[in-house]
């Protein structure tokens, strides 16, 4: 069936069609949606048709494309909004200064920091290098348009198993290829713009093979009076488009992100994939922050999903205005880009500024100094309509209230019974020495140094606690990094990630709670008090009730803990449709947490410090082996996924923070994948020193449970010499003594005994595989 008869070409000397929705049959409406790449449902097409019937004319292609962008899942959160409102947006905190493209939190009396995390999953599955690089570009823009200087990047990533065989399903790329491409993309972009990549994670599971996840986060710092708005200041403000030129690249990125991946995605979605140009971005950041500091602009917003179509509408509407834009003034990369393409293109490295007319010349001068194109393309007007002009022709004239009032769905969902199985199928285990080495070699636990050192994690010279910690050139893993963002102050900002998709897969509610627990533990480990979280929620197709049920429960779990700990979530991102022919990716909420360090000179690292140091375990260990690293490695089944006792978490954070500022703690590492045993091994590796351990004080549990249970809210702590009694008293019964730092082996009474070199060799084996 052809829909050509519905496309009415206008008699002008450029390419524009009006689309005859009025005479289209339902089947033709569906066909229009798919042929034009709109990704709109039939019901949504009906709504649009009624709107135009009301105003008495058919839409132009520019108008129809624009609505499709605005109503995509990616832009309007139609499936998730009600759930987010209830659980996330409703957590209020006086330190939240703004919720814009990035969230803004108070840092000290004079400064604020911005934070945001976002996914770039689908583009990265198709073209890992460009997909990841443009992900970094996008998240930087979100932070810059709050008026903040980016100071740190974060990159939690999920891939299929790196050691799987080389045959992969059609349309899918091997995890190692994807990993190399993604890490190179983040490295080249992040390093070239001079923002350190200080935290992240690489998670491997077969279920990510067809659908890798690339989440990128950014934190920025600003003086409080530099925080900008993401909208125009008022009627008469000029709209200045700056940065890269606009082309056909990146067309339909958001609609691409709002559908499952297929074997053909590679061919079909080429237009949505871009490479990014950090050397346009870097001066654009400078110029934007300069004109903001000089007080020359009234608002600023980045061009991300939906391109101009989203940014103009949102900037005008939020500023209480309408807008007139001369679309033909937009600088183009190539000839022949037609109006609707200009309006929705997602070409990289672009920002929109709003400024009073009299400030425009100076702004243009500043951009010229940096050789960054900047063009006045329109202005804010009275009312709430946006009008687009090409030559003398009006190609778009729409009421913003309609365009931005995207649908909001309460889609059906089902809540699964969590697999809280009392009767566990405990795996057959080899000797405990071998279990340990095997776990250290497990790609999810093994050292990620291969990636971390390809990122410049020290540029800007403010990374005071680094991602790898311990003796030089023999470091072990850290839990969080700490930035010292203000030259004249000792105050610091801890940055950490929390993510455990295996818990979420077995028990979404507990999984959501556990990821908050993890991010808090990580922050506390270095001496940072949890302050804010930004979340990237990666789930499957929300039109399938079980996927949406997982989403809802995970968000409920996250919201529950955050609300009770009073940790706001001032920004975040939802990524649905993480599915491919090979199945659905693990439900993966990724949290980026920030914590305040009162004085960075009191920070603590994970490496064991000195012979004779007393080792304590803080927190309660239970038989919670469900979805543990041990079970995943050796084939255990069932078991309870670790629960979070929120009161205990809150109390423990307070006690640990006090002990740290009192200087009692010499080293600290949280217990996560692999439990106490792996935490101890990692602390030994970082400190290049052994420990002798007796786990009997942990209580009446089987040895394997003591060693490998992943119960939440626990840390292994080395206490400074002479402070043992103080510490034990301060911890109010939560800490038990489990051993002493000594020698060059890690030996656990009635457990195992391993040399440092054997542990290090196993732990660093992933690098060899990745080459």
């Amino acid at each position, binding site marked *: 069936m052809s829909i050509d008869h519905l496309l009415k070409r206008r008699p002008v000397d450029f390419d524009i069609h009006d689309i005859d929705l009025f005479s289209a049959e339902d089947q033709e409406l569906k066909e229009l949606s798919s042929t034009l790449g709109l990704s709109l449902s039939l019901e949504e097409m009906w709504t649009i048709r009624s709107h135009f019937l009301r105003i008495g004319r058919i839409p132009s292609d520019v108008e129809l494309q624009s609505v499709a962008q605005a109503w995509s899942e990616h832009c309007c959160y139609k499936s998730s909004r009600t759930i987010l409102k209830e659980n996330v947006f409703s957590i209020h905190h006086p330190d939240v200064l703004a919720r814009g493209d990035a969230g803004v939190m108070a840092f000290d009396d004079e400064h604020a920091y911005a934070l945001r995390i976002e996914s770039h999953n689908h583009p990265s599955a198709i073209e890992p290098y460009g997909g990841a690089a443009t992900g970094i570009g996008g998240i930087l823009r979100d932070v810059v348009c709050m008026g903040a200087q980016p100071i740190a990047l974060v990159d939690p990533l999920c891939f299929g198993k790196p050691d799987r065989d080389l045959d992969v399903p059609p349309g899918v790329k091997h995890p190692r290829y994807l990993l190399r491409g993604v890490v190179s993309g983040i*490295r080249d972009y992040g*390093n070239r713009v001079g923002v350190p990549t200080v935290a992240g994670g690489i998670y491997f599971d077969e279920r990510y093979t067809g659908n890798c996840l690339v989440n990128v986060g950014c934190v920025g710092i600003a003086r409080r009076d530099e925080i900008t708005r993401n909208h125009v200041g008022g009627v008469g403000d000029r709209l200045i488009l700056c940065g890269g030129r606009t082309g056909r690249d990146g067309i339909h990125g958001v609609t691409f992100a709002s559908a499952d991946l297929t074997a053909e995605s590679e061919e079909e979605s080429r237009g949505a994939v871009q490479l990014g140009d*950090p050397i346009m971005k870097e001066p654009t950041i400078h110029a934007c922050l300069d004109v903001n500091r000089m007080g020359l602009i009234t608002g600023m917003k980045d061009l991300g999903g939906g391109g101009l179509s989203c940014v103009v509408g949102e900037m005008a509407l939020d500023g209480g205005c309408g807008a007139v834009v001369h679309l033909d003034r937009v600088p183009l990369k190539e000839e022949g880009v037609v109006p609707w393409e200009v309006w929705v293109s997602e070409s990289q490295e672009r920002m929109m500024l709003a400024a009073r007319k009299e400030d425009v010349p100076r702004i243009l001068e500043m951009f010229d*100094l940096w050789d960054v194109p900047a063009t006045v393309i329109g202005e804010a007007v009275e009312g709430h309509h946006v009008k687009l002009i090409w030559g003398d022709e009006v190609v778009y004239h729409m009421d913003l209230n309609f365009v931005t009032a995207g649908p909001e769905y309460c889609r059906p969902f089902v809540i699964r019974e969590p697999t809280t199985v009392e009767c566990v199928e405990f795996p057959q285990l080899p000797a405990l020495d071998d279990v340990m080495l095997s776990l250290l070699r497990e790609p999810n636990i093994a050292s990620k140094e291969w990636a971390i050192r*390809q*990122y410049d994690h*020290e*540029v800007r010279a403010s990374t005071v606690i680094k991602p790898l910690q311990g003796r030089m050139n023999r470091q072990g893993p850290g839990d969080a990094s700490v930035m010292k963002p203000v030259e004249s102050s000792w105050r610091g900002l801890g940055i950490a990630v929390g993510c455990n998709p295996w818990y979420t897969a077995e028990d979404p509610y507990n999984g959501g709670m556990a990821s908050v627990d993890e991010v808090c533990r990580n922050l506390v480990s270095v001496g940072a008090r949890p302050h804010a979280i930004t979340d990237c929620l990666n789930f499957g197709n929300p039109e399938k009730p079980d996927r949406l049920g997982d989403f809802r429960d995970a968000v409920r779990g996250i919201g529950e803990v955050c609300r009770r700990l009073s940790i706001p979530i001032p920004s975040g991102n939802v990524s649905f449709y993480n599915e491919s022919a090979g199945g659905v990716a693990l439900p993966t909420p990724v949290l980026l947490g920030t914590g305040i360090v009162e004085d960075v000179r009191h920070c603590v690292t994970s*490496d064991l410090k000195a012979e004779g140091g007393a080792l304590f375990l803080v927190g309660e260990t239970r038989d919670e082996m469900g979805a543990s690293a041990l079970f995943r490695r050796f084939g255990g089944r069932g078991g309870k996924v670790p629960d979070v006792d929120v009161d205990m978490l809150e109390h423990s954070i307070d006690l640990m923070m006090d002990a740290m500022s009192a200087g009692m703690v010499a080293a600290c590492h949280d217990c996560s994948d692999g439990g106490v045993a792996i935490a101890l091994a990692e602390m030994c590796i970082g400190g290049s020193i052994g420990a002798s351990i007796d786990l009997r004080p942990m209580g009446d549990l089987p040895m394997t449970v003591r060693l490998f249970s992943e119960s939440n809210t626990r840390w292994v702590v080395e206490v400074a010499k002479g402070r043992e009694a103080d510490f034990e008293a301060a911890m109010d019964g939560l800490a038990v003594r489990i051993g002493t730092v000594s020698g060059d082996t890690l030996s656990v009474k009635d457990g195992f005994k391993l040399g440092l070199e054997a542990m290090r060799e196993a732990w660093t084996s992933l690098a060899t595989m990745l080459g």
Partner: protein
Amino acid sequence: MKKVCILRIEGTNCEDETFAAFHKVGAEPERVHLKQLTGHAPLDLRRDLMDYDILALPGGFSAGDYIRAGAIFAARMKASLGTQLRDFVTQGRPVIGICNGFQILVELGLRPAFDEVMAPQPQVALYTNDSDRFECRPTLLRMDNRGSCVWTSGLGMGDVVMFPSAHAEGHLKFPAGEEDRFLERLDENDQIVFRYVDEDGQLAGYPWNPNGSPGNVAGICNPEGNVLGLMPHPERAMTRFNYPEWTRGRDGDDGDGLRLFRAVVGRN
């Protein structure tokens, strides 16, 4: 007060911490875009290189390090600022190139510059690390200069300092077959300033030497000693809290970078 020109183009980074480093030792630094020195800027922003006492080429990725690291920046400087730069150097004013700045000095022909101030063509190259990867890691450097270099006058010979490295192209390459001759010549002229060493202060291989440079050379100066180029970042070692092992105990709040920057700023 010493005026410092921190020169940048698109893609330069590390200028903020280089600024902070000079500021900390009491100089008056300014970030200056190359176009401000060549007259291609609004009137109030134009600057003259000769008004500055010190020139710093910070690290980063000028122009993305496309083609070769530093090549584009160097070519633009040479074309638009060549004569002034030559004068600046011959007058003995201190110049430092850090990381990308070192790559720029090399591409400019300002390093090693045995016989002339600025050679018409590069005489050495800073090439891809042996690991074929960007390497961000702390590095220990032994100061091996016998006294010609003004930048290290605050350090003693044999002192070991920690300046972090972060680069993909830091392997110093001499013309094939002439490696030994070049190394000898550099040594004779007292142009070798820093060498990568291990914890015992001894020359050692990867990862102590992060890029595979022959003779473990990390930084060199001109025979007159006023122009220093080095791969590692002294501006990232201004306080002890920049150190990889500071939580393992280290005295004082100062970092080794201070001694380098103080040496030129304190001098008259």
